[in-house]
């Protein structure tokens, strides 16, 4: 080998060693995720093409897309899908606005910054079901202090639209702090001097917010939106405790759970699972491709 060739070989040796080390270190985690998540996902997809009801275990068999047809032509499915979408969009929109306000408060407050950040983490850390029970009892007529504020005899959790409202409120309460924290990080990256310059340029507080803060926060906002939308669509815990999905307040996850664990219908349950996943993937795709949201960890200026 010539000297340059030998050099090249040595360089790529080092690189090759680095590559191997990288793979070795990643493999345990990768294998784990593959086994525990990957394999069941594939299994799930396969099951979605089968007729598999645990109550009639002998009547298994391939049915192609008929499960999908059954689900997709079922108005109950679409109603549930609609409800889930509604809850997702409304709660995320409100969380964004409130979260933005919370971020500004956490950033600018002159008093008790630490106390604020600590208390605000409680909704984030508290077990969702636990909080849901708090709301459940608060809205139950008789027991609940919130229910007793309403005209006598109304049981909001037993009516469709009030119940949805309560569910949305519960979601908002639980995750606004999380939104607030994500947005706070974005807020903190804006240099203070830009605000002073804008002041000198004649911009008042609201104008500074709209023309400086918001545009510069676009990346943080899109990341926060993306994560919350994916999360919100999978809503389960709050609905389970508040209404158990009654009066048309089921989400797609609850519906799937009912078909699967209660109805023991693995075929239909798997079909719904796949459909949920596809929806989530499409939402993510829209965000990343169309709105060009950067996933955290990308932007590698290494």
């Amino acid at each position: 080998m010539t000297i340059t060739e030998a050099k090249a070989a040595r360089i790529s040796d080092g690189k090759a060693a680095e590559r191997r080390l990288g793979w070795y270190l990643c493999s345990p985690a990768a294998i784990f995720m593959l086994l525990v998540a990957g394999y069941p996902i594939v299994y799930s997809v396969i099951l979605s093409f089968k007729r598999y009801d645990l109550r009639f275990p002998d009547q298994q068999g391939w049915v192609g897309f008929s499960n999908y047809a059954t689900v997709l032509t079922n108005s109950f499915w679409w109603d549930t899908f609609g409800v889930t979408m509604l809850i997702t969009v409304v709660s995320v929109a409100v969380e964004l606005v409130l979260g933005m306000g919370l971020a500004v408060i956490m950033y600018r407050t002159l008093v008790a910054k630490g106390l604020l950040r600590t208390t605000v983490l409680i909704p984030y850390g508290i077990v969702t079901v636990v909080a849901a029970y708090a709301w459940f009892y608060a809205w139950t007529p008789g027991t609940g202090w919130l229910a007793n504020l309403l005209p006598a005899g109304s049981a909001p959790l037993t009516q469709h639209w009030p119940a949805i409202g309560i569910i949305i409120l519960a979601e908002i309460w639980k995750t606004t702090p999380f939104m607030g924290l994500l947005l706070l990080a974005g807020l903190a990256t804006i240099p203070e001097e830009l605000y002073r310059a804008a002041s000198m340029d004649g911009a008042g507080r609201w104008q500074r917010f709209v023309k400086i803060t918001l545009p510069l926060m676009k990346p943080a906002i899109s990341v926060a939106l993306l994560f919350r939308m994916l999360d919100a669509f999978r809503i389960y815990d709050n609905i389970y405790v508040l209404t158990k999905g009654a009066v048309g307040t089921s989400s797609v996850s609850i519906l799937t759970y009912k078909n699967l664990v209660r109805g023991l219908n693995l075929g239909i349950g798997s079909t719904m699972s796949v459909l949920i996943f596809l929806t989530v993937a499409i939402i993510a795709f829209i965000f990343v491709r169309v709105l060009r949201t950067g996933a955290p960890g990308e932007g590698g200026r290494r």
Partner: protein
Amino acid sequence: MAEIVLDKISKRYRGGQEVIKELDLTITDEEFLILVGPSGCGKSTLLNMIAGLEDITGGELRIGGERMNERSPQDRNIAMVFQSYALYPHMSVRENIAFPLTIAKESKAAIKEKVDNAAEMLELTDFLDRRPGALSGGQRQRVAMGRAIVRSPEAFLMDEPLSNLDAKLRAQMRTSISRLQKSLSTTTVYVTHDQTEAMTLGDRIVVLRDGIAQQIGTPAELYETPANLFVAGFIGSPTMNFLPGTIAEGKVSTAIGQLPLTDQAKTDLGETKGDRDVIVGLRPEAFEDAAFASGDGRFSFDDTVDIVESLGSVKLVYFNLDRPADSPELSEVAEMIGAKERFGSAQVVCQVDARSAVREGESMKVSFDPKDIELFDAHTGVRIG
């Protein structure tokens, strides 16, 4: 009328620290006023108070005759150029410059015209559609200026706008700024720590030390008749030489000779019983190689040359005399202007003609005119005479 009046302005922080102490200053319309001083002297704080970015603790600020203390920055109609430019990264150069006009809701046509004019004045026309990230330091600086001039404010405030540029660019921009200010005839308050900028740009200069104005005057006044040690040491490069001196029998006795006193100095000294310690100041440029300048009235001394610095146009010759001045005031001043070494070791710098045949380690004779000396009280630093 964009006259800026600072009437007994003071600034005190909550911890009790008083940063600006009852400053009185009137900046006339169209004047280019410099605030100069070492770090921590309060010049930026003062500028921020005029801008409205910091509260005024005491006194009154009037711009164009109106009291401004309570007004927020956006309502004062003054523009500011920041040290780090503070350009909006998400907007193009055009949008950056147009920003104040957009806020003021001017018509699109008016905005376009004004922005184009400003861009032409600052030679930015080719860059209007770029983002700040794609510009060089000098270009960014001009965009910051553009944003300030575009709305014809009552006054410009500039906070060390050139300090982030390299030396050559700085010199270039100095002349641009000067020309710009003259053509726009706008009152300008300019903060810098660089005395060269102060001397070349300002109509008048305010020398600040610890929140107190040491002297307010034209560059010539500050150079020729500095009010105290601090101003004398701050203005002029290389820094003025300070020697210990003793007044006796109508003359001042120094290491470089027994020098006569001016009549004014004699009057100010008054009746002094016994000897009195003073500091004698003499600028490096007041010296000359005795071979080139001698004659009536000139004194001379010779000593061994310590160091020679050849700058091309002149030579700087360093001597080491024996006695450093024993003055706490001088030490403090030296500390503030960063000349501790020089004053601590009684070093004298002479600026001589470049043709001088001076050589390090050899003896050399330099001459000077004793009328050029300045006398300062050794305790207070105040100028005598």
